[in-house]
Structures are given as C-alpha cells and as structure tokens.
C-alpha cells in the first residue's frame, strides 16, 4: 500500500520537476525583450511632476546614404517636439541634438513654449561619415553607429529630459 502511494507521489514530483525545468529552459531561450517602447507618440514626460516638461515626443531617428560613391550619410528625425507650460522655473529654453558627443542642432524657445523640429527643417539631414563595412559592428551592410541624444535644456543648459538612440548608417563600400 505505502509503496504504491510513495510511487504515485514520486511520479507527481517527477512531472512537477520536469515542468519547472521546462519553464526555466524556455525562459532562458526566449528572445530578449526589446527596450520598452512608448507607442506611436514616443516618450511622454510626466505632466504632474514639478518643473517638468509638459510633453517630449521623439520619432525614430534614421540614417541614409544619398550617394553610394561618397562617404557621407545623413541622420534625421521625422519630428521632435518638446513643450513646457512655462508655469514655473526652470523653463525650457533650448532643444539640442548631439551626435556622438558633438552638438549639431540647437533651437531656442523664445516666442513659444513649444519647440518643434521636423525633418524638412534640415532638408539634407545632419551629415556624418557612413564608415566602412562593419565599422560599428552591425554587419557588413552597415558602417558607423552613432549615439544620438535629444535634450530639451533649461536656461542654464541643464537637460530637462534626455532621449538617446543608436543610429546605424549604411556602409560606404564603393
């Protein structure tokens, strides 16, 4: 009698153990979860937090190679928009884009509490070197990888928010 009950319990423990192992294995082999995204509206600053931006919306940056015979690529964004309701200091005064540590774009909030950037404001984009195949480690079809930082800044040039993206450019392989 006891032998059979014991065997039954063993079967249950064994199947339970198998399940746990399977769950752990499947958890390990599952594809890595991408960075949380915030939907089509991009990032949204907390409007309740004091001294914060009302909103900060950024679309995906991109890189393209207009002429394959020239080692020049263009980085651009469809749109970026930052709004400060100007109710309390610090106030948003600038919106800046930095590519690999170098400031490349700076807009001033003077007449409006909102700064909007659209790709057609810099029609040819921000020119960077495409780089040789696999220069950034993204494969032979790609060249340099650039860290692009978008920051609304206050009057003391302190960042009020920061969005960072790595942008991979096509390779220059004439």
């Amino acid at each position, binding site marked *: 009698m006891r032998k*059979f009950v014991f065997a039954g319990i063993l079967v249950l423990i064994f199947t339970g153990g198998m*399940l746990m192992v399977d*769950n752990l294995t499947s958890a390990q082999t599952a594809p*890595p979860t991408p960075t949380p995204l915030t939907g089509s509206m991009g990032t949204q600053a907390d409007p309740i937090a004091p001294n914060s931006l009302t909103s900060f919306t950024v*679309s995906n940056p991109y890189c393209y190679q*207009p002429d394959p015979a020239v080692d020049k690529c263009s980085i651009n964004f469809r749109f970026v928009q930052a709004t400060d309701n100007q109710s309390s200091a610090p106030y948003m005064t600038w919106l800046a884009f930095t590519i690999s540590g170098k400031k490349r774009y700076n807009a001033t909030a003077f007449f409006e509490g909102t700064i909007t950037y659209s790709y057609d404001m810099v029609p040819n984009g921000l020119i960077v070197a495409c780089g040789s195949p696999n220069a950034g480690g993204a494969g032979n079809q790609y060249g340099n990888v650039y860290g692009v930082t978008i920051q609304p800044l206050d009057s003391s040039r302190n960042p009020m928010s920061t969005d960072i993206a790595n942008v991979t450019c096509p390779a220059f392989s004439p």
Partner: protein
Amino acid sequence: MRVMRTFLLVMIILGLTQALAYEPVHTAPQAVTMIVSNPYCVQDVETAGSCLINLRYFSASTSDSSFSHIEIAINGKVRANMSGFFENSAYLTGPMLGNGLKVACGGKNISGIPDMGRQYVVTLSGFATGSSPVVDSANVTCPYYQRKTYLPVLMK
C-alpha cells in the same frame, strides 16, 4: 492489490494531465506589417548621369514590442535604415530622404527596355525580433542618360 495498481495508474494520469495543462504556451512572434508605395526613379537634371530613386512612403509596424527596424536596399546595398527606438513602428516618407537615393541612370536601352536606362532592384524590408523579415522587392527602371559631346565652334 488491484486497487493499489488503479491508484498508481490514476496518479500517473493525473501527473501527465498536470504536465500537459501547465505546458508553457509560447506566443508566436509577430510578423511585421508593411505598407509600401511604388518606388520611382527620376532624372532631375537631364545633363547629369545620376538619377534619384525614391518612394512616396514606407511604413512598418508590429502589434507587439518586437519591432526592430526597416531597411531600403538598392541592388542589395543597404541605403537607408530606421530603427524602432522610440516607437513601435517606423514611418518614412520620400521627402525624408532628401532628394532621393542617387544611382547611375545608365545609357539608352542598357536594361533591355526601350528608351530607358538602368534597372535596379529596390528591396524594402521590415524586421522584428524573433521572426523572419518581411521583404518587398520591386524593379525600378530609370530614364537613360544621353551623353552629348559638344564640339567647339571654330571661327575662321
């Protein structure tokens, strides 16, 4: 004795049922949904041998957060890349690529198509983590480039 055997059998069946019931369900990765417009080729300056390939729009998205990036390739060479950093989708319009992607127009009938220049394969691809890329390809034929030689006018 028979009761014990039955009991053991029931326990085994219960165990197997439990195993099957708790088998983790792996959700299928979401394929990229793409909407693309027709690519085109334009020779904006007649006297130049370069043409421009562009398209009106190219958008891609996934219903979950697995979206990775989109690519535009011409004859297998990647010419534009947009990654899904801040959005779960990518949306590219023609003007976002400046004047377009420069290619050689090619001489008359070079692709075998009468009164046309070179033909290029334009590949639009959308990528998501954990699933195969979605690829759309189109042949784009460019206007030809008629090389002209101007002789100097000699005054007698």
